[in-house]
């Protein structure tokens, strides 16, 4: 049975989306229309209630804090110190800068909750440097963009918090632990692509060599003066240690029970504040109000989406749509391999034109019951969902990481798509492994007794 309200909802959503209406508003309008057309429910009231109470949740509170910690760390010189460390570790190999870029994105992603923070901070410094060393510009952008998505699998991760909240009784801590191995896996796969491509020398012809002056503009003095791979480990490690300690502080704090994920995020802000403002002094006290404002606006862009999506999931639940979808899918086949493949294909299609947060918000209530019916652990499903939508962050036409990567790398989406293809293959293989090898996700949380 297909409810007319559902058709109205989907049709109006697609039309509004195509007309460049902000996604959050498109979700809100189609939800309002669907509820209003029921004729029995005060639509405006319900949307207003779900919009407001849907975001007043303690776990979601971690998001603004991880955003703020990311801003403080990016502005405060932590990203640069991580690049130094990565270059000492992997910079000496052939195609070394590509590994440096990947590893730095992973490390920075590991301390900030968002992929865009990683692309803009790390990509902003690495892409010009790679170009200067003879890497193809578009290849450089592709590396940074795809590598940055590992930050969403490696904790802390804002989108995992969003998932834990919409999925219901799932602890943020177990999501965080579950993401570590898959995140590292994706990172290694990306490095593998770099290795293969650097051997064939296909992408690394010095066809796009930038004059050194251009690169120097956007680079810190340390980095331009740095001979990659030539420095000794100790001083560089010492410099990056405070940033790495933050990862340990956050994870150990959550695992050791000292604080909740939200409080760990607040501690991360305090720590990043001390490092950026007091120790490194790269952020001034007078800049703090601006940091607060940027945090507030970035938070609200995500939260307006969460807010209207909460209204949409109410409308879906009220019509018992998730149950209908689950029943429909299970009526096609009860082979879990096939159903997981179908779910992944749908999500990949969704990811091409929808951003991650709304996709998680809209599709978790619909697909999670199917996955649970198949015997999948909700945490495993969450990791699969996020790994899948990470690919979508880099695919045109809508991909936040792609947008940011292209803008910091000063190139176009069309130009970067071709060198991206090899990385898509690597991510797809990782996704397959994550989907069909539950241990990758569940191993760590089980070992720590978190599942």
């Amino acid at each position, binding site marked *: 049975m297909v409810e007319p309200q559902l058709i109205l909802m989907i049709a109006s959503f697609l039309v509004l989306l195509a007309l460049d209406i902000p996604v959050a508003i498109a979700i809100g309008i189609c939800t309002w229309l669907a509820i209003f057309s*029921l004729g*029995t*429910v*005060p639509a405006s*009231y*319900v949307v207003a*209630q*779900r919009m407001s*109470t849907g975001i007043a*949740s*303690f*776990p979601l509170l971690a998001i603004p804090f991880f955003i703020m910690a990311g801003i403080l760390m990016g502005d405060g010189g932590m990203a640069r110190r991580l690049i130094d460390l990565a270059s000492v570790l992997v910079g000496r190999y052939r195609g070394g800068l590509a590994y440096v870029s990947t590893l730095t994105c992973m490390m920075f992603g590991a301390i900030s909750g968002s992929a865009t923070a990683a692309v803009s901070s790390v990509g902003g410094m690495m892409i010009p440097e790679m170009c200067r060393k003879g890497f193809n510009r578009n290849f450089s952008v592709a590396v940074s963009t795809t590598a940055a998505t590992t930050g969403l699998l490696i904790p802390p991760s804002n989108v995992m918090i969003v998932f834990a909240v919409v999925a*219901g*009784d*799932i*602890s*943020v*801590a*177990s999501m965080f632990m579950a993401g570590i191995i898959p995140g590292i896996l994706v990172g290694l796969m990306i490095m593998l692509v770099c290795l293969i491509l650097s051997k064939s020398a296909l992408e690394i012809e010095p066809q796009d060599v930038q004059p050194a002056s251009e690169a120097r503009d956007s680079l810190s003095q340390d980095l331009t003066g740095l001979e990659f791979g030539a420095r000794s480990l100790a001083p560089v490690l010492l410099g990056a240690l405070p940033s790495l300690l933050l990862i340990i502080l956050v994870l150990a704090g*959550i*695992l*050791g*029970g*000292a*604080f*909740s994920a939200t409080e760990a995020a607040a501690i991360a802000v305090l720590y990043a504040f001390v490092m950026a403002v007091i120790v490194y002094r790269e952020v001034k006290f007078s800049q703090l109000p601006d940091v607060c404002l940027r945090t507030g606006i970035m938070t609200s862009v995500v939260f307006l989406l969460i807010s209207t999506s909460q209204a949409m999931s*109410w409308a879906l*639940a*009220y019509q*018992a749509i998730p149950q209908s979808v689950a029943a429909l899918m299970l009526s096609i086949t009860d082979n879990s391999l096939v159903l997981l493949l179908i779910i992944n294909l749908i999500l990949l299609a969704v990811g091409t034109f929808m951003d991650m947060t709304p996709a998680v918000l809209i599709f978790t*209530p619909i697909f999670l019951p199917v996955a649970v019916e198949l015997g999948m652990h909700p945490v495993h499903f969450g990791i699969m969902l996020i790994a899948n939508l990470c690919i979508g962050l880099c695919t045109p036409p809508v991909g936040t990481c792609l947008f940011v990567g292209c803008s910091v790398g000063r190139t176009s989406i069309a130009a970067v798509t071709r060198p991206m293809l090899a990385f898509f293959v690597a991510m797809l293989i990782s996704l397959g492994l994550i989907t069909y090898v539950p241990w990758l996700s569940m191993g760590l949380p089980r070992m720590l*007794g*978190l599942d």
Partner: protein
Amino acid sequence: RHVNLRPGGGNEKYVLKLAHSLDQSHPVHKAMAFMADTLKTKSAGTVELQIFPNGQLGSETECIEQLQRGALAMTKTSTAPMESFIPDMAIFGIPYVFRDEDHFWKMIHSAIGKRLLTAGESVGLRGLCYYDAGARSFYTTDRPVMSPNDLKGLKIRVQQSKTAMDMVEALGGAPTPIAWGELYTALQQGMVDGAENNPPSFFTNRHFEVCKHLSLDEHTRVPDILLFSEKVWEGLPGHVQQWIQEAADESATYQRKLWSEENEAVLQSVVEEGVTIHYPDKSEFASKVAAMHGSYEGSQLGNLLQQVLDIK
């Protein structure tokens, strides 16, 4: 109007939506499914009760608000979030108001119990019946709570309710409000040292895996209430209203039986899982809260408290 009407062979069909935040294995959910069946039989299929478990349509407070606007027909709620709407409901959250289970049921069936059930009508909430939610007791990770002294320095998770926080404080513990969904991890990681709830919740949420001591001090008896939207109710014909009330009453009797069976079974299961059940001397706890009882003197809640204590 505010009821989902669907034409069905000349007879009007009523679809009533009931949302709650419990799991489908919970005795209250089973009682609601029983009510749905009863209604179907009584109405010859013209009244359908659709149940939405697991908080699909929002938290208890949000569902209550949706009832008030007529977006939802029914919900189940603990009396704790009802305090925000009907201050008198706080009576159930005050520790040691009831001498024992017998006293509790006498109060529920007295004029006071009936008055509290209908007290929400002024804010658009019609109470249909009470469901048994047993007695709440402390459970802790490391050491048992045998007397109020044992609570000293222990962080105890409480609901977001002022009375609950006052209660734990009066008994000597440090009340820590934490979302229910986060509680398992919080207990496991030692963010809090214990919590308080009824044995079936202790069991179904698997808190027994981390809390090895259940101390049956039975400090409060906080029932559940089945609420109906006043707005939706007004749109129903008299005979349908009567069916609903009858089906609710029957489900309440059924639920009380299910609950006591469940409670017994659960206490046995947690022991098998390695939990030690303790039976502390309740009078020590009761004397600790005398001051809290006294603090209500002269207020509306104080008068109600006296009336309840006077029930013999």
